[in-house]
């Protein structure tokens, strides 16, 4: 919201003429000042010029040639990328050598070898608001060759750009901002435009409220003797500074009243207003209306129409007027509409139609349903400046439906205010703080009965008044205390385990990635995973609508990305959520760990799993009988805990690697952390270490491939019994000397007794038992 400094001082002359002090007070009152800008100062070198003709160049599609006269009768040529002007229009011309506000220097830069003798400017390029949709079109009847600011009667204005939040609908007008500031600076504030005297013969624009729930109040007044003209310079300057383009005195006064009183209103040409009346009703489904911006809008049965007395649509209620009753240069009698619309309905229409007008933005936040009279009075007062002969007619209408809101009164307990703010406040202090901003306070036992001003519909509860008290007392004065928790701070056991897991992974040389949790259509299928997934209704990028069910696709993309930048052997992990579908209230979201080791084969993943499992105190069954989807059929296993699969380990299927354009082999480990981190790990229990010498011996067995090494391992442990203190598989051999379909597995055993030194006889006995145990599996001791 743009608030003009001179305007504030006009409304409240007691305010300091000091932008720094005002800006600070505004921020402190919750009206955050994004910037204080100096606008409207003419850019030296930019003059008014008349468009003579325009011409396309056969080799230039995005620009055309515009010939202008800057008042000296000399035809100048400029290239222009905007097409919104035609012969006769008056436009601002930045002549060669002009330094633009954004720092650009206008040079006769040729296009297609033809130089440009300057540049035509948009409003934004001149610092006159945000409009950059085309070249700024100036009134046709102004002098040529003069600085455009002079031609427009612009003065330099200081403007506060305020970030006005939802809870301050009143601050969408200068009036509301001035009231807040007056209270803060403790200066008197009174806003009362001279009362309207209806001196004209009765002349009425009738009002019929068909759907009064959507429009609880609608007033009309007829004003004749209007002469359409330019607005005075000061008014045009302020409107420009506030970001609105001056058009003519009637439209400008309408806008001025909106920006000042926060009171959107609409002036219709009374002569073209069919049936000299208004009818407010919901549109029929599919009904159309051409709005002031020239667009034809197809409406729904939830859009509110302003129709004329003959039921012809003339405006989209609270959003935008229709083109058919626009004020023209010949208008002499206007019917002024000032209404109050139900906010949520306006919001729905604005959202649906994409039409966020100055009016709809205000109505949807909640305007003051009262105080319409002051707005009309101000309209008349201002229009009389340029139309001294105007007459206000008797017969004004103030139609209200039963939905017109009443006043809100809230009981405020001073003790409650103190309990919330940490500083005690008496009823008198509360009254003194909020009465200046329009809250009327009456004693109510020990409490305060606070009647909310009609321009603050956001205040409905006691806590809202607490905020107003705090705001005007000053947040900074409320002090800073630190509450002390009676509980110890810290990580939960799950969080501690997660940190430990991360440290273990980092220590193993694996770095952390954070791929996007959304996948593209087909990413899961390309990874060989089930395509069944939850989808987004409104993805940011069309097609990126799949909520991942596995961390693998994201990590594979990361591997491919790193390969493409010549970083092979990427070792990456992610700890993140996945969201498989479910029939419950929410998807079956859980936290997962995914690890990819590019350039490594399946055993690296198994080794990693063992390392992690040992560090975390986890155990799981490795089941190669069930090959997980997307993994190499001979190099993948499911990790199971009881009956539940809690992870996969192995190597990514070569088809998947091809689909992800990964050229290295990729070892992969995925774990369900929601299950694993929640498991209480076994605390390792002390086993006494023997003080007696240990003995090592090596055994190699030939076994068919069908006997998995895990079974051999188990058999050796059983055979050796408690004497075994260490067992390591140190060689696997297939080839000459070993039958086809078998391999030799070589183990080193370390045995030790707790209470003595093993004799040779002891060692032979253990060895024999081990050999016998492995023989049961079909294993033969290798020579």
């Amino acid at each position, binding site marked *: 919201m743009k608030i003009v400094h001179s305007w504030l001082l006009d409304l409240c002359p007691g305010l300091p003429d000091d932008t720094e002090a005002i800006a600070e007070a505004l921020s402190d009152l*919750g009206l955050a000042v994004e910037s204080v800008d100096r606008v409207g100062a003419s850019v030296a070198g930019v003059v008014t010029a008349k468009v003579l003709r325009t011409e396309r160049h056969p080799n230039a599609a995005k620009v055309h040639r515009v010939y202008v006269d800057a008042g000296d009768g000399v035809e100048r040529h400029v290239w222009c990328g905007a097409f919104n002007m035609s012969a006769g229009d008056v436009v601002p011309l930045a002549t060669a050598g002009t330094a633009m506000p954004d720092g650009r220097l206008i040079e006769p830069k040729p296009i297609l070898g033809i130089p440009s003798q300057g540049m035509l400017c948009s409003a934004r390029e001149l610092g006159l608001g945000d409009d950059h949709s085309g070249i700024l079109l100036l009134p046709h009847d102004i002098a040529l060759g003069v600085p455009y600011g002079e031609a427009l009667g612009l003065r330099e204005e200081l403007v506060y750009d305020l970030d006005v939040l939802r809870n301050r609908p009143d601050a969408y007008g200068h009036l509301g901002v001035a009231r807040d500031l007056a209270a803060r600076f403790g200066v008197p504030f009174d806003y009362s435009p001279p009362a309207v005297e209806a001196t004209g013969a009765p002349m009425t624009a009738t009002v019929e409220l068909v759907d009064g729930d959507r429009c609880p109040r609608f007033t009309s007044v007829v004003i004749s003797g209007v002469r359409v003209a330019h607005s005075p310079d000061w008014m045009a300057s302020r409107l420009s500074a506030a970001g609105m383009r001056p058009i003519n005195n009637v439209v400008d006064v309408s806008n001025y009243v909106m920006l000042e009183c926060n009171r959107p209103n609409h002036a219709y040409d009374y002569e073209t207003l069919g049936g000299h009346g208004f009818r407010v009703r919901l549109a029929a489904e599919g009904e159309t209306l051409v709005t002031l911006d020239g667009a034809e809008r197809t409406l729904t049965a939830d859009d509110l129409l302003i129709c004329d007395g003959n039921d012809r649509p003339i405006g989209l209620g609270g959003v935008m007027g229709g083109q058919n009753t626009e004020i023209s240069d010949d208008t002499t009698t206007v019917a002024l509409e000032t209404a109050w619309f139900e906010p949520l309905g306006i919001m729905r229409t604005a959202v649906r139609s994409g039409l966020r007008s100055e009016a709809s933005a205000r109505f949807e936040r909640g305007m003051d349903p009262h105080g319409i009279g002051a707005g009309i009075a101000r309209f008349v007062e201002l229009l009389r400046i340029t139309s001294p002969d105007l007459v206000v007619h008797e017969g004004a209408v103030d139609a209200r439906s039963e939905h017109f809101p009443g006043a809100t009164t809230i009981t405020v307990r001073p003790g409650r205010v103190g309990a919330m703010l940490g500083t005690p406040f008496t009823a008198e202090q509360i009254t003194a703080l909020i009465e200046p901003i329009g809250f009327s306070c009456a004693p109510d036992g020990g409490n305060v009965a606070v009647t909310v001003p009609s321009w603050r519909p956001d205040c409905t509860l006691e806590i*809202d008044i607490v905020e107003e008290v705090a705001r005007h007392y000053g947040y900074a004065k409320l002090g800073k205390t630190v509450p002390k928790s009676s509980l110890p701070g*810290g990580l939960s056991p799950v969080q501690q385990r997660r940190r430990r897991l991360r440290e273990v992974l*980092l220590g193993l040389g694996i770095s*952390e*990635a954070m791929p996007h949790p959304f996948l593209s259509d087909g990413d899961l299928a390309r990874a060989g995973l089930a395509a069944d997934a*939850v989808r987004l209704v409104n993805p940011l990028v069309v097609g990126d609508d799949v909520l991942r069910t596995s961390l693998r696709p994201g990590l594979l*993309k990361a591997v491919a990305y790193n390969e493409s930048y010549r970083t092979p052997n990427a070792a990456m992990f992610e700890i993140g959520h996945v*969201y498989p579908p479910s029939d419950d209230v929410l998807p079956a979201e859980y936290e997962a760990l995914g690890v990819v080791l590019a350039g490594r084969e399946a055993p690296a993943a198994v080794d990693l799993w063992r390392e992690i499992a040992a560090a975390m105190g986890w155990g799981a069954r490795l089941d190669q009988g069930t090959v997980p989807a997307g993994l190499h059929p001979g190099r993948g296993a499911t990790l199971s805990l009881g009956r539940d699969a809690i992870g996969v380990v192995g190597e990514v299927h070569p088809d998947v690697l091809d689909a992800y354009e990964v050229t290295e082999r990729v070892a992969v480990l995925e774990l369900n952390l929601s299950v694993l981190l929640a498991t209480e790990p076994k605390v390792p229990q002390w086993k006494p270490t023997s003080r007696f010498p240990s003995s090592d011996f090596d055994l190699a067995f030939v076994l068919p491939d069908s006997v998995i090494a895990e079974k051999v391992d188990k058999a050796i442990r059983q055979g050796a019994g408690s004497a075994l203190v260490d067992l390591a598989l140190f060689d696997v051999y297939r080839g000459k000397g070993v039958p086809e379909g078998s391999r030799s597995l070589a183990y080193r055993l370390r045995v030790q007794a707790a209470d003595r030194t093993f004799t040779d006889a002891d060692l032979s006995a253990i060895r024999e038992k081990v050999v016998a145990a492995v023989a049961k599996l079909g294993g033969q001791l290798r020579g």
Partner: protein
Amino acid sequence: MIDEILAARDGALARLAAVTNLADADAVTADLLGKKGPFAAFKTRLGSLATVDEKKAAGQAVNEATSAVEAAAAARRSEMQRAERATQLAAERLDLTEVMSRPTRGHAHVVTQAWQRLEDVFIGLGFQIAEGPEVETDWHNFEALNMPPQHPARSMHDTFYVDHGAPGSTVLRTHTSPVQIRVMQTIEPPIYMVMPGRVFRNETTDATHLAVFHQIEGLVIDRGITLADLAGTIEKFTQAFFGVDFTSRLRPSFFPFTEPSAEFDIRTPSGDWLELGGCGMVHPNVLRAGGLDPEEWSGFAFGFGIDRMAKERHGVADVREMYANDLRFVTQF
């Protein structure tokens, strides 16, 4: 005989002096002092001497000579040992900048690093950590936070809707605030919790905005909690996280789930104010949604972005870089 002994002693000392390495030293020593050495021989000859006095004198001479040779041998041995160790050490000299292995440690994501730093500071201030789902019900994300259907403030959240359950019933959480509700519903006050997590906004990404990013949110609910407690907690956090020469302030603002609401800014030692996040007293409607009586309990909440902490700490120009998973980026931190 005494002369012989003295001569043998001098000869032995000369031989020891002539050795040049440890092995020689040991061999010569064994030769001289062993059973077949000259001094052993003198001792056997002692019995053949005529008089007691002669025996006594010669015996003393042999013992003295033996001791002298033993001492010399030990000295020579240790001298040789030192020399050999010195030679070994000189030979083993390495250029310690001649290192061929590459560093192998893994690197935590910058956002994780910021996340954990923040958690640790809050733990120090007596907070615990709470977590919640990223796919949320509309009720938890909006309605329980004082944003009923059609509430205008909902339009400030560019929400990703999830095709799950009834249309519009499921969203990707737009903030970490739904965790507040889950905490209130499951934990009896007092509550001193922070809630870090991933959040989602359906807005176009650029150098400072992401559609998927991270927030940390704090929630304190206890008896007699005030706005001054909020200001004090923010101040304490500011100094613990940024440094003791930083200060903070609250400015009135608006959020549907807090009342009074505030923005909080921090002031750098150079005097600049930076906007950090939003905060306020938990709205009575939110306390009720969480199953708490606002007349009995009061509290405050605050929240801000984690990604920005990482971005600014490390001077990352474009926040999207942090999520490209490029190891050339990841391994810088």
